[in-house]
């Protein structure tokens, strides 16, 4: 059977040679990329199942997600996997990026590997952001309003009109289900092809990489995801009210540094533009033999983002505690 397929497509030869060159014999770090890839595919699969029941309308969206979570058989499980999958995918991607930064895998001639990875990260962030809007709970509504206000002159394109409506939901839905996943898929294809080309993992003379670490890491991630989805299944909060004051409504954890920075006005814009610029510029700036300054700068940036994120997470709880008189 597989011979029949092989003689007609040559798939096994092509994929085998490609994937055979992305494994490493030396460390666990490259397995992170495989885990991220697996999680992305899982997100697509669970996303398709969710899209069968989701209603992209301003009034119907929240109710459709409530239905998925309560009424649809195993809907709660599919949604929980999708929600936890988001967190794990973003965490794995960030860890993968950080590991690759430390090992200097962005340096010449691998700039395009890095840049395709940055594009992939941007697409995943876009997907995560638009995905959080879709249930139209308070966080979702707030996300849509923030996106519209940050878009400036493009606000009407984001909202699909002068105010939040069915058109807004349609746009966020299309962005989440078609636009960002398509960009991500293209970026992944480019990224994997370039990794294979540069033999990132299996350098010349080194023993050939084995796929076992990647498989074990993927199995581990799947088990962790399953345990999280069962232990902490995702519910849904009350329907978002546009007129409600939105103190304490937080975005996804990965956006918390930006959320905190945006309170300072210009600091938010600085981060929104400066951070991607730094990531894109990195392979072209980090060329010298002495990597220490760049590494230190990188760690400082990571620490700064972590601090901003923690501040963003804690914000509101202190005020709430004060308000309740504790």
């Amino acid at each position, binding site marked *: 059977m597989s011979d029949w397929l092989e003689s007609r497509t040559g798939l096994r030869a092509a994929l085998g040679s490609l994937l055979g060159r992305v494994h490493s014999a030396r460390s666990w770090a490259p397995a992170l990329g495989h885990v991220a890839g697996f999680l992305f595919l899982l997100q697509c699969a669970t996303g398709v199942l969710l899209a069968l029941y989701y209603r992209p309308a301003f009034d119907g969206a929240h109710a459709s997600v*409530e239905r998925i*979570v*309560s*009424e649809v058989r195993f809907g709660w499980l599919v949604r929980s996997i999708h929600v936890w999958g988001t967190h794990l995918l973003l965490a794995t991607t960030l860890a993968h990026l950080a590991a690759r930064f430390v090992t200097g895998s962005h340096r010449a001639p691998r700039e395009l590997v890095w840049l395709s990875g940055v594009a992939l990260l941007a697409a995943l962030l876009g997907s995560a952001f638009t995905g959080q809007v879709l249930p139209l709970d308070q966080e979702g509504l707030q996300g849509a309003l923030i996106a519209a206000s940050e878009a400036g002159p493009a606000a009407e394109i984001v909202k699909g009109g002068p105010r939040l409506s069915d058109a807004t939901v349609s746009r966020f839905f299309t962005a989440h289900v078609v636009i960002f996943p398509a960009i991500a898929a293209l970026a992944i294809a480019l990224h994997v092809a370039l990794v294979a080309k540069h033999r990132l993992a299996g350098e010349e003379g080194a023993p050939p990489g084995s796929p*076992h670490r990647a498989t074990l890491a993927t199995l581990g991630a799947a088990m962790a995801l399953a345990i999280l989805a*069962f232990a902490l299944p995702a519910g849904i909060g009350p329907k978002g009210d546009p007129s409600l004051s939105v103190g304490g409504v937080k975005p996804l954890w990965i956006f918390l540094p930006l959320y905190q920075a945006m309170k300072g006005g210009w600091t938010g814009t600085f981060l929104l533009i400066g951070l991607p610029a730094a990531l894109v510029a990195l392979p072209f700036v980090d060329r010298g033999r002495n990597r220490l300054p760049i590494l230190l700068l990188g760690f400082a940036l990571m620490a700064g983002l972590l601090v901003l994120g923690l501040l963003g997470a804690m914000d509101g709880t202190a005020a709430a505690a004060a308000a309740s008189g504790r």
Partner: protein
Amino acid sequence: MELLLLLLLQDVDGFGRADRDAACLDCHQESGEELRGSVHEATGCVGCHGVDEVRRGQVRGNPHRRIAEFRSWKGRNLTDDCGSCHAGPLEALKGSEHYVDTRSPAESMKRGCIECHGYHGVRDSARSSIAKECRRCHEPGSRDLDWGEAAFGRMDDLERTLLRCEEKLAELRGRPGIATADVRAAAGAARRSLAEMATAQHGLDFIRLEAAARQGNETLAAAYNPLAAREREFARRWLLLAPFLLFAGAAAALVGARAARDRKDSGA
């Protein structure tokens, strides 16, 4: 001559439009006091009695002109005033022995809405409060009182079940894995039927009312009771996870063994 001029200049008519409570309260302070704090405070005097023209400051005789919009209490069945907003209960009452078709306002105060609810000072029309009014005329142990109290008791049961159900639904809203749409629909239907019963009870057909309330309670309980079982079933979801973890664990062990073998082979 000056007297004639003075008379001519005076506003002989002296009627002013009384379309706000302030105009009524000039003379009717007591009624105003009773209305304050009652459920009809927002409705005001004019809401029930209508607008009239009055000669303000007149101390003797009746200062009311009694224009067409004014609903005077003379020669009318005052129960009709209540019906201007509470049409449903009035329709039901008309079919009962508690209604009298009369032109005498005094008679209509003895048998009609006012008999049980009062008029200006209506504060509470809950079933439990009105039930006390029955005992003013109906002896304990009498057939009518027993039937009435039985019907009210079943309606109270239904309301208690409904409140418990609505509380549980609020708690479960948005929680994963526990279907509540059918219970929500049943609670909505029960709420509507309780409202219909509250109107229909004015017809005093307590046997029908008691049966309807009992049936409503059974239907609601049938929908509500499975919720606990669904919560328990969801708590047992780990039984689904266990096979997956076993399978994944076994696969990981196999892969690990293979990796160890490969390392040994390449090392040797």
